[in-house]
């Protein structure tokens, strides 16, 4: 059995996905006779443009034994409690999709049904007022959530805005300390065995690096998974038509927001990601509806601070590699698939792929059932994120631009259509276990973008109108008081920068401990 063991693991590409993979493998395979080599070229740029993350990244760091305070210092991180979507449902709208809950379940029924009952009566406020992370984020406040489930401070979690390039450098040090070898150079040729498996890669320098197992983190190009193995790509741009982005960092200006901004534009959307040392700005757009120049101008005219670097253009095709794992090669990151960063899922999808890779870590035989299961689970993740992203574009009343006319009228995947129909019928959110976005997220986007049910769960009628009104007021007041107690985000950042204590245990969940 020992001779079947993989000995040489070769990772192609640095960047966030390459170094996250290297770090995790080095951690999980330490003291086992594996050699891990990462090949990257300083000549090839990485896509990392300042990233908004999800709370799951905390779990990744925790698993690798990375100190969160140290990580934050190394990546110029700020805290993040959600994403604000402006002008999506219609011009002038804004809502925050929080890393947390709305209200609380009462008598076994989700809060939004109670909210809906009041809403139908023309009473109550926007559902934003019943979610602590929304209220606190809007007031630019932050503090660590608590683990005590009885406390309202347990109803949210948090993530970070980080400089992804700095995170990659940090993980490089971490990995090299654990014995990962970095090779500088560009891959110019790939050699295969008779059975199609990759046997080695050749660098510009002429050096040949052999391996048993290859991980393709080479980004959009997919040097191994596509250029060599011709795995194929499923194109989803008919549902998610944006295909370009332009990004530029700027100097800090104004408040340090504890949330990411995603502002819909005439043919796409703009992001704004506040880091400690700069602001990340970008414009994701569809080239069929706007020129590069116009897209760039839109970005430039909306940047608050002074520009730090020239705008950088990117091109992409939304979709997914037909098999993330093919033969002795696994694609992680952009080589595996691309979904626009509207819900900050890029690093999450890298992380999930790494976790599943470790779960199904192979030997030289590359067991078929394990590889199939890895691919099936990754497909499920991508598809479910994809559908959630499509919802943002499709659930719109905007008719001010051809792009939005297209999105509003396009046919959507059957499963998503069914989900939306169920919500419209009686406010039901389809539950699933194998996927990232659960009930609070769907509620946030549905209600935030004008998908309003025509009925609610009749169980909530056990309350009288006055009981309901009282309960709703109590929840609103509780959240209002809680937000008031929280310190300002920038103050909290200063005070707790170096502190390791008080940080709650990380979970693989977008929401707080209660979920």
């Amino acid at each position: 059995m020992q001779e079947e063991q993989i000995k040489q693991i070769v990772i192609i590409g640095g960047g966030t996905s390459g170094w996250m993979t290297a770090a995790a493998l080095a951690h999980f395979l330490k003291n086992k006779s594996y050699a891990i080599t990462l090949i990257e070229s300083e000549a090839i740029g990485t896509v990392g443009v300042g990233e908004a993350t999800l709370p799951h990244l905390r779990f990744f760091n925790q698993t690798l034994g990375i100190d969160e305070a140290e990580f934050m210092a190394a990546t110029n991180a700020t805290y993040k409690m959600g994403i604000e979507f402006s002008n999506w449902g219609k011009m002038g709208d804004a809502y925050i999709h929080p890393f947390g809950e709305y209200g609380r379940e009462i008598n076994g029924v989700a809060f939004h049904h109670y909210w809906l009952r009041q809403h139908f009566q023309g009473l109550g406020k926007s559902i934003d007022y019943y979610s602590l992370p929304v209220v606190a984020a809007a007031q630019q406040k932050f503090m660590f959530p608590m683990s005590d489930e009885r406390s309202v401070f347990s109803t949210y979690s948090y993530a970070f805005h980080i400089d992804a390039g700095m995170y990659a450098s940090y993980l490089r040090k971490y990995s090299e300390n654990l014995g990962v070898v970095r090779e500088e150079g560009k891959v110019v040729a790939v050699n295969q065995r008779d059975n199609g498996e990759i046997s080695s890669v050749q660098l510009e320098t002429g050096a040949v690096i052999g391996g048993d197992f290859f991980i393709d983190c080479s980004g959009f190009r997919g040097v191994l998974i596509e250029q060599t193995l011709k795995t194929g790509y499923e194109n989803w741009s008919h549902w998610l038509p944006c295909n370009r982005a332009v990004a530029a960092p700027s100097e800090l200006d104004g408040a340090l927001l504890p949330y990411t901004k995603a502002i819909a534009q005439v043919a796409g959307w703009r992001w704004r990601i506040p880091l400690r040392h700069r602001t990340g700005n970008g414009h994701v757009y569809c080239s069929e509806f706007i020129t590069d120049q116009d897209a760039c101008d839109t970005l430039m005219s909306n940047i608050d601070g002074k520009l730090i670097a020239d705008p950088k253009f990117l091109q992409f095709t939304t979709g997914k590699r037909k098999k993330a794992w093919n033969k002795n090669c696994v694609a992680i990151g952009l080589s595996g698939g691309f979904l626009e960063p509207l819900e900050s899922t890029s690093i999450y999808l890298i992380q999930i792929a790494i976790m599943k890779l470790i779960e199904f870590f192979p030997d030289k035989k590359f067991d078929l059932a394990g590889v199939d299961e890895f691919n099936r689970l990754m497909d499920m993740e991508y598809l479910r994120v994809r559908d959630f992203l499509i919802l943002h574009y499709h659930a719109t009343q905007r008719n001010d631009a051809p792009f939005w006319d297209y999105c509003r009228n396009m046919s959507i995947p059957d499963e998503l259509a069914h989900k939306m129909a169920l919500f419209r019928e009686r406010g039901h959110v389809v539950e699933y276990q194998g996927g990232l976005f659960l009930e609070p997220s769907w509620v946030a986007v549905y209600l935030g973008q004008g998908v309003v049910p025509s009925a609610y769960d009749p169980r909530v009628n056990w309350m009288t109108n006055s009981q309901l009104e009282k309960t709703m007021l109590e929840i609103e007041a509780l959240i209002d008081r809680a937000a008031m107690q929280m310190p300002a985000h920038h103050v909290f950042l200063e005070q707790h920068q170096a502190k390791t204590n008080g940080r709650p245990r990380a979970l693989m969940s977008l929401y707080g401990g209660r979920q």
Partner: protein
Amino acid sequence: MTSHRLVIYGGGVSAWVTAAALTNAYTVDVLKVVLVNPGVNTKEPSIADSGFTSLRRFHASMRISERELMGQTSATFKLGALYKNWSKPGQNFIHGFSNYGSMLDGIDFHQYAVLLHQCGDTTAFDAYSLAAQAAAAKKFGFLNKDLVEQGFNLDYSLHVDLSQYSQLMQTCAVRKHLEVICGQLDHLNLDADGNIKALVLTSGEVVGGDFFFDCSGSDSVLVRQLPGDKFLKWDKELPVNKQIDLVGGAAKSGLCTDLSVCRGGWLKSIPLKDKTLYSLTYNSEYESDDAAMTAAINFAGVELSDAVQPLTIVPGRRERFWVKNCLAIGAAAGNFTELTFSYLHHVQSGVLRFIDLYSAAGVNDFSAQQYNQLTSDEYARVLDYQQLNLLLGAAESSGFWSCTSKIPRTAELQRKLSLFKERGKLAFEEYETWMPGSWVSLLLGNNYWPEKHDVLLNGCNLELVVKRLGQMRMVNSNLAAQLSDEDEILGKYAILK
């Protein structure tokens, strides 16, 4: 006051459980619940149930005191199922609800058991289960907070007398606001769209309503009259067609439901406080009724009685469960076999899903579609689990068991088997009735060992693993010994009227 009415048709367990759940979910001024009791025997399980852990959650959500319920339903604590002579002649395996071993260094426990097995270790897998150790020693108890925080658990469910349980559900429902009408269905009044407007009873009484529940057992009196109704037989998937139920005296221990193979099929016993339900499920192609009756009587240790006759069973399900404004619940919706099955779970899962999806204010088209999809998925996974039990039953190879390897399997079960065989990983499925740990322990406990262990265990310190696992077994048996005697704790806990 609302005029919205939900009407249940049936007088057996499924009807009363449905009534109790609906009256608990909706106050009378929201939805009025009416039950029409035909007063005839309903074709559905009626003697005893071997619950899943969900049963206790159901009671908690209804705010029913478990202690009172246990007193009123001749209940015993159930820690799991005892597979006697199932996968290997002479081998007993207890499949407990609670966990087997605990995770080590972030790697699932069972991978270590696989590793040791490959090194020639023959320790029974249930040595790592506190539930199994407790059940074997006839011990039971409630773990204190300290132990729970250390990761121990002793999850349990109940064995209950179904006629007493029905009575209790009836009392709960009537106390809430259930209205009961006695009478038998003559015909349905349908509207032009095929929705039921009313049940017309033989007495001439017309019971109108907005939504109807078919709880009439496998006769499925209401749904079978609706347009497009179809019953999908599982004659290939679960190839049994007869069942003999016998009631005998109290068993020595109530902590496990027993299962064992026999020539014609399998034997199951559910121990209640004062009696035991013995059932033999078989395929008449492989065993004559007379031979089956003799086997059942020997198994139960009772006298032959003319009153007991083999029942014909037809495993299968309706193609759709929610059609128009009518929902089939329990045996009216699907018939599983009495093999690792809880009829109460089957019924409760159906009615709770309905409550989760029903809108009283408008149309329910997408809710019905969703209900039918989720229930189909749920049934498919239950079927997978029952089939797996049949595949594992290797202690007998003649009779019925000569055909079990030819049973057609779903792609999902096939995937589970191949993936597990390869390296002990369990394939993920949505909407499972059994948690991944339950599948794993069922497989390993019944000697379905993977070919390879987790790669991450390569190069681990084997001596240390042996030591750690030895400690786990020791802790389990020590803990089990400290629990109370089963009879004593049941006597104290269950409140008799």
